Structures are given as C-alpha cells and as structure tokens.
C-alpha cells in the first residue's frame, strides 16, 4: 500500500511485493503453473462488449443450442472480472476508444479473439472511413473468419485458445514473468481517444 520497497524487505501492507513473492512461491517453487493454465483455460469469461452485428451470433453461441458455457466461458458484465474479449465484428473509430479502455480495465492475464471478417480486415467495410482494424487496437490471439461466423466457430476459437494456453502455458507465463507488454499495440491511445469524454 505504501510505495515501492526493495525486494526482500516486504513489510506488512506492501501488496506488490507480497504478490510478487507469492507468485514466486506458487509458480516457481510449487510448480502450480499447469494448474493455473488449466484453471484459466476453462474459465475464459468474455467481457460483454458488443462492438457490432456479430453480437447476434455471439449471443446465439450462448443460446441453448450451442451453449458455450459448457467450455466454462460465461459472458460477464464488467471488464474487471473477466479475462477475455471477443471482438464481435466491425470496430468503428468511436468504438475503438471504448475497446481500448475496456481492454485496459481488464486484469491480466487477458486474451482477445477477433470474430468476423470486419474484425480481421474490414470485411465488406474494408474501405470505410470510420472503422479501424481491431488488431491495431488490442493484441489478438485467435481469428475467426466468416460474416458472421457460425456459433460453432466461436466454440472452436475458445477450444483453440484453451489448447494454445495449455500447450504453450501462456497463462502461467504471463503470471510468472509479468504481463503482456504494452508495445504490442499498433495504435497509441492518443490517436484513439483524443475526443473521448466520459
């Protein structure tokens, strides 16, 4: 709670140092990395940011017929409690700022799935003056083609992400080595949010 202190002299109340130590103990010494990967893989909660019309299929992907909750994914309301974002289609210039703000509000480790042609290379709106490519705004892990993709594709993307996470141990690496660096952003925040109010 009080500012930085040299490593090893953690006194009661310094959360950062205590967290670092706990992280070292649990992941380095106790080798809980696989458990972390397993837990994170089966608890990918996408944040409820509907950027565009792929939201229809996103909603259908959690409908009784496809029910992605079976993979442990539960669309959740606030960004603070989630760890995944599914970019559902076009991101307009106005929404891009919101997307970045939501992404920044999410706790690490976090992942992004780009859904639909618009989220990849603009789709049918490739030459529109009011859209941005989502991979310029946030670092994307899995891409789903289609306009809109089928709900199974969303499930397939989640499975793919789970597989990647457990194979490459992404989540535990994030936790152990610190977070995903910010330099992966293609577009700086000033470009996106210069006009934002709120």
């Amino acid at each position, binding site marked *: *709670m009080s500012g930085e202190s040299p490593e090893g002299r953690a006194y009661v109340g310094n959360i950062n140092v205590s967290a670092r130590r706990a992280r070292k103990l649990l992941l380095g010494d106790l080798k809980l990395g696989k458990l972390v990967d*397993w837990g994170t893989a089966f608890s990918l909660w996408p944040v409820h940011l509907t950027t565009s019309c792929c939201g229809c299929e996103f909603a259908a992907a959690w409908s009784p017929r496809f029910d992605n909750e079976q993979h*442990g994914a539960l669309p959740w309301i*606030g960004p603070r409690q989630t760890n995944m974002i599914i970019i559902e289609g076009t991101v307009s210039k106005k929404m891009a700022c919101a997307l970045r703000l939501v992404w920044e509000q999410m706790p690490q480790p976090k992942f992004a799935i780009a859904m639909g042609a618009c989220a990849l290379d603009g789709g049918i709106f490739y030459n529109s003056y009011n859209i941005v490519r989502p991979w310029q705004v946030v670092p994307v892990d899995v891409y789903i083609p289609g306009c809109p993709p089928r709900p199974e594709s969303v499930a397939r993307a989640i499975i793919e992400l789970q597989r990647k996470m457990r194979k490459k141990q992404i989540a535990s690496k994030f936790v152990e080595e610190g977070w995903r660096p910010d330099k992966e952003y293609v577009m700086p925040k000033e470009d996106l949010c210069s006009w934002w109010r709120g």
Partner: protein
Amino acid sequence: MSPIISDIIKIIIWPPLWQLIVLGLLLPLGVVVFIIWFERKTAARVQRRIGPYHVSPRIAGGLQLVADLMRYMFQEIIIPKTVDVAPFIMAPLIALILSILPVVAMPFTSNASYFPIGMRYSLIVALALITLSPIFVIVAGWASNNKFSLIGGMREAYLITAYELIVMVSFLSASAATGSFDLVKIVEAQAGGKWLGLLNPLALLAALIGVLLSTSGFPFEIPESEHEVVAGAYTEYSGLVYGINMGAAYLKRMVYSILIALVFLGGWRPYTPGPGFVSGYLIPSIVVFIKATILMMIFSFLRAVYGRYRLDQALDIAWKYIFPLAVAGFGLSLALAYLGIY
C-alpha cells in the same frame, strides 16, 4: 489407542474448534461451491442447455468452480488510483468474516457438551451479527469511487431499511411462540413435528422473502443488478477480492438458510441427539445442513424463473405486504403461545 492420537481427536472435536473451522468455514464453503455449481446447472437445465461440462465431463462439470477459483487466484488484482485503498481492500474481508461469524451463536445439537458458546440469547446474537455485513457492502461501494459502485451501495442502503425489520420480526416470532431466545430451546420446542414453519407459515414466508431481499436473491437482485449498475458495489473489484465478495454473498445466504432451518424447520429434528460425538454432534449438524442446502437450492432455483423488481417496487412490497405479513406471523406466534401449543 495411544494417548497422543486420542488427544488430537479430542482437539479436533473440541466443540468451539469444530464449530468454527469445520462447520463454520469448511462445510459452508463446500456447500457454497456445490450451490454455485447447482445454480448454474439448474439454470442451464430450466433453460434447456447443459451448463458447465467440458472441464470435467465425468462429473458434469463439477470442477468448474475450481477452475474459476484458480483463475481468480492468479488474476491481477487491480487497485485503481482513485480508490480509497484501505477500505477498498478491507471491506470485502470484513464482510466475509462477518458473514460467517453468526455461526458461533448457532448450536447444531441439543447436547450441551457440544455447544460452541453456550448462551441464552443466541438467536439475538446471530441476528445481530448477520445484519452487520451489509454495512461493508456500502463501504465497498463508497470506497470504489465509481458511479455505479456508489449507486449499488446506496441501493443496498435503501434495502437494509426494508429487510432488516422483516427479518427481525419474523425470526423473533419464534421467540414469541416458544418463549425463549435460545436457539436450542426453540428447536427443542419444535420436537414431535411441531415445526414452526408448518404451524406458522406466515412467519416462514416473511422470513424467506426477507432473506431473499437481504441476500439479493431473485427476484430482489437489485444492488448488483447488472443492467443498470454493472456489478453494483463490486464493479471495481477484480481477481481474488471479487471472488471473496461473491463468496461472502453466498456465505451470508448459507448462514441465513441455517438459521431458517433451525428456527422454522425443526433444526436437527426429527433426529434426537444422543451422547457421544457421532450421534450427539455429527448427525444433527448434517441434518441441519441438509435442510439449509435444500433451502439454498430453492433460492437458486428462483433465479431461473424470475426477473428482478424495481428498487421502489421492492421497497413497496417489503413495507406494504411483507412487513404486515411478518407482523401477522408474530401475532400468530403469540396466538400459538397463548393456546399452549409450545
């Protein structure tokens, strides 16, 4: 048996320790894990889908909560710059402790050697402790320095005024009937099938609705109503602290359910506790917990059937209908006492 082992066993079944660690912490936590899983699966079943599954296909996704817990454990805990850090962190922890604390006043058996803390006013103490934790929801909402958190906290504050009285009056109607504030005596008075809930359904109904109001269960899930105030007072919480918040809410409901099971549903009856640890303590507590779990399941089921009331409607219902109902229940209890049934 060597004396050391028997000493260890004695320590384990030493009533205060058993009560606090096993019944007060571990068993409720286990039940909460089960109930959250049950809630998701029930909702899924009513909604014609399957719910959590692939995490452990053989036990129908029973490990889902463990996975969620693992994620929460290792997620970054964000403390925004604008929050008041000390209350922001402390509020959920205190709320969690206060949610479980009422268990110290709750006996799970009539066998006096296994009372946690023997006291004559255990019902009053339990109710008093239960009603402390909402204060810290308001503190959490205030400390978060977020508009939605503040609104959520204020909603909780509004609702406290409504449900506090209902809960008090409806639970105290048991004292009115049995003439005692001691939970043991209240349960023992219900022996022989004279469950207060059956003889005085008005008070039971009022208590159930009061519990729904106070634990923000459907249809009164207003403080965390996600479509206006995102996550209510918990909007800014992330990682493990948010998990603690959620756990505290369920533990509170668990404690309320235990209290209802004791006061209205005959406690450990129809089982009659005997001497010794197993028959004098273990089985009666399991009976109580089963009753409480069934109540929790009913509360969970309502999520699948109801939407949520508006804030003013909830207050309206609470004051205009449920409070008179609770008072009527109290009157009925007095009548029962006058007739000499207890």
